[in-house]
């Protein structure tokens, strides 16, 4: 839409530059000695790694909400399912290095398990776990989506039902009897593919993988939204009936995009776990999904840059404000959400494009704006004299 008005080439250049900075330059700066003023600390890089996984989650939300008009409040479920699927591999990698010095994960030892439950056994395999992080969320999305879309559940109902699904799953994972670590979830990971997961090199590698994955997902979604499929998808958002009466089986389209976005969320979760070092059911509490939706709203829904901008900026704000003013940050966050919804329906990206448009409409571009600002300032000065 508005984006396409920008000259394509400059957009491409921007993507290439940002990707280069993010994927190549930032990790390189991390390898510099800590004394260097260009040095990016392990902490910062790791933090950005986390933000970028959340950005992947945000893209999956936007693919549904911004592009298809389906507000899913269950994306964090898929995100965490991906995380758990991969986390099971990491838990088994701990082996005898854990607190209990047993082959079984610590929490099972506490609870007196003597053998691995059957659904854990395949998770010794790295590739099985990577694939599980994709197909487990996909399967859940497929079953739920099929039922929901077939009964024409949409709009608010879809949101509330996805929320209920997440809540049920959250309660399920909180149970210690589920054998997924209960409230504590998975933590204290030691190894990934034989590498020390806490080593800065491993974390750097994970960061690079995350940033690259995000780029690929971004490009993939760009391509997707530009195909005829993407057009049908947006047509469903704008007028589902018309699409239906144009002969498209909207159920299959919605199902396809729902499953796809659940897999994207799953990938995000899979990358999140090794970088954050913990996964537990409170991350799939209903308000976490809401948060992800808010990132998209803040960044700008219906664009692909928006979710990334939103996820990174809201989380950075949170990281900053929980330290800078721990007593007030919830006020700040709440107010930001309210104000964005009320006054910036197109989010930060929308704000940026309207500024760009405004400037380009002015005579002489930016210079013209500058001139008019200065002029009005001069006038005011004159008036006060």
């Amino acid at each position, binding site marked *: 839409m508005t984006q396409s008005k920008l000259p394509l080439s400059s957009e491409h250049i921007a993507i290439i530059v940002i990707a280069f900075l993010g994927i190549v330059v930032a990790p390189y700066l991390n390898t510099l000695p800590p004394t260097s003023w260009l040095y990016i600390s392990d902490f910062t890089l790791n933090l950005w790694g986390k933000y970028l996984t959340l950005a992947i989650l945000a893209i999956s939300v936007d693919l549904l909400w911004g592009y298809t008009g389906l*507000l899913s409040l269950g994306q964090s479920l898929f995100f965490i399912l991906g995380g758990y699927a991969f986390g099971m591999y990491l838990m088994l990698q701990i082996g005898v290095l854990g607190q209990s010095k047993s082959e079984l994960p610590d929490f099972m030892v506490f609870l007196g398990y003597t053998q691995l439950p059957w659904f854990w056994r395949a998770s010794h395999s790295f590739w099985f776990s990577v694939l599980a992080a994709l197909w487990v969320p996909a399967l859940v999305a497929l079953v*739920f989506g099929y*039922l*929901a879309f*077939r*009964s*024409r*559940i949409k*709009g*608010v*109902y879809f*949101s*509330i*039902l996805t*929320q*209920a*699904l997440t*809540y*049920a799953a959250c*309660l*399920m994972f*909180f*149970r210690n009897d589920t054998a997924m670590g209960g409230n504590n979830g998975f933590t204290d990971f030691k190894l990934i593919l034989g590498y020390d997961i806490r080593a800065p090199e491993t974390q750097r590698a994970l960061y690079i993988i995350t940033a690259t994955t995000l780029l690929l997902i971004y490009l993939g979604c760009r391509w997707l939204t530009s195909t005829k499929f993407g057009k049908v998808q947006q047509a469903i958002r704008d*007028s*589902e*009936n018309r699409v239906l009466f144009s002969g498209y089986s909207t159920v299959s389209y919605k199902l396809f995009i729902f499953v796809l976005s659940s897999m994207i969320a799953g990938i995000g979760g899979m990358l999140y776990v090794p970088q954050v070092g913990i996964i537990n059911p409170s991350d799939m509490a*209903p*308000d976490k999904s*809401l948060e992800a*939706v*808010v990132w998209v*709203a803040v960044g700008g829904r219906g664009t692909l840059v928006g979710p990334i901008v939103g996820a990174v900026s809201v989380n950075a704000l949170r990281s900053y404000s929980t330290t800078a003013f721990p007593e*007030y940050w*919830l*006020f700040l*966050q*709440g*107010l*930001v*959400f*309210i104000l964005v*919804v*009320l006054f910036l*329906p197109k989010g930060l990206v929308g704000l940026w494009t309207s500024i760009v448009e405004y400037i380009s409409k002015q005579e002489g571009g930016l210079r013209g704006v500058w001139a008019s600002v200065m002029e009005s300032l001069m006038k005011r000065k004159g008036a006060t004299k």
Partner: protein
Amino acid sequence: MKLLYHNITRLLLLFLLAGTLGLHAQTPSGGNTRQLITEAILSSGDEQKKKISELINADDVALTSTILTKWRKSEVYIATDAGDKKVPYTLEEDKPIRIDNGQPLTLPQGSAVETDGALRKAIASTLNLLGIADPDPKVRQGAVAKLGGQQKAEYVPLFKARLEKETNAQVKYTLKEAIAITELADASPEIQTEALKTLGSLYSKRSGDLLKKFAGDPSVPERQAAAKSSLVKLENYLSFCETIETMFRGVNYGSVLLISALGLAITFGLMGVINMAHGELIVVGAYSVYVMEGWFTRAFGDAGLQWYFIAAIPFAFVNAALVGLLLERSVIRFLYNRPLESLLATWGVSLVLQQSFRYIFGPNNVPINSPSWLIGNFTILDISFAYNRIFVVCFAALIILLTWLLLTKTPLGLLIRAVMQNREMASCVGVRTAQVNMLTFAFGSGLAGLAGAFLAQLGNVGPNLGQAYIIDCFMTVVVGGVGNIIGTVCSAISIGVATQTLEQVLQNSVLGKITVLITIILFLQIRPGGLFPTKGRGLED
């Protein structure tokens, strides 16, 4: 007649205790009651416990009971006179009365006598013995039950004597039960078998464990058979009681859901606003109760505690309605056509409100004392009904009735329905839709406040209270059918009963809840519009 009772009982007791009490018991001089109690209070250790057990001999049984009861509740105080002599006293209508002579206390007041578990146990034991003859049947019944549980053969004649005179049916039952339970400790298997049979015909809940024990003991086949058949009888009876109790729990849990969700049925169901801050409006109501309780107790003392809740109900409504009004004016009115975005904005509001509560009332939960008429329960068969739960059910019914009347029988209700059905059309015919929206939202919020007032009586009141209810509320409204108050009623009660039944059957709170959620999701596949879908063909996007 009453006097005769007392005398006979006392004689019996004397007879029983004579062996253990020795000389002391032989000198029951009249008017020694106060002296004996005073001594008991002022002594300590095993000596004190002995003295307490001897109080059974005191002349004035009523006085002994009264003072012992007070002692047990830490309502006995000690003042010290000039000669460092300790004078115990109690408060009667706020006036200090000396225990040793019944005269008003002239000394400066002192502090309460502390009691511990063992001491209270000793007091209770004496009170129970005294209680067998208490004029209040409830006290008699409690006393007999406790004594029976001790399985002491020496009490049997006591029970039997009482049984002959007893007129109250329930006390009679308990006496028979106590006798049978005590007889179970007898050495002879014949007596035990008889007792087991008796217990079976009494459906005695208290004897469950004993029946199980004898049913598992094959040494005397006849006795085992009797125990087994009695156990089956008892278990059938108990499962019947349990079923009724579960239904009652389901209905009252449903009522809690209903009260919580009713406000949402208005704001979400009728107005289409997805108000994620609904939970926080509930919290406003709950804190209103807390504030009101504070005012009342400060103004009227303990008497305030009895009535503050009556005043708190409208107060909670008004406060929540005002917050709702503010919310509507400042945020929601801009979002009537963007329901999904109202979800996000109100979620922001809910974060802000939660943190505000932490600021105003502190991050901790606050205590709320229920008025005494909401505490306690009554029992039919072995099914107990708590007063506060019954109150919740009645109150839910009342609120529903009032809401229904408001919506259907008043001009405002007409306006509300008109605006909700077609906002544009209503404004075309001259309805001031902005005002109606505002009032409707405030009304829905006020209902949330009422819910908070009740939840304050049942659970904790803190900044996070609302979060525990918000999803349940939405589910209730959706299952009922959006925009349909009757639907909300039906869905709340069904969800309540289903949850409680599943919890009872599965013996697991979480699994029950998960099952209900999954069932709801599946149910909505079959009936996407809920129990009572909104009529018409309105499928247009």
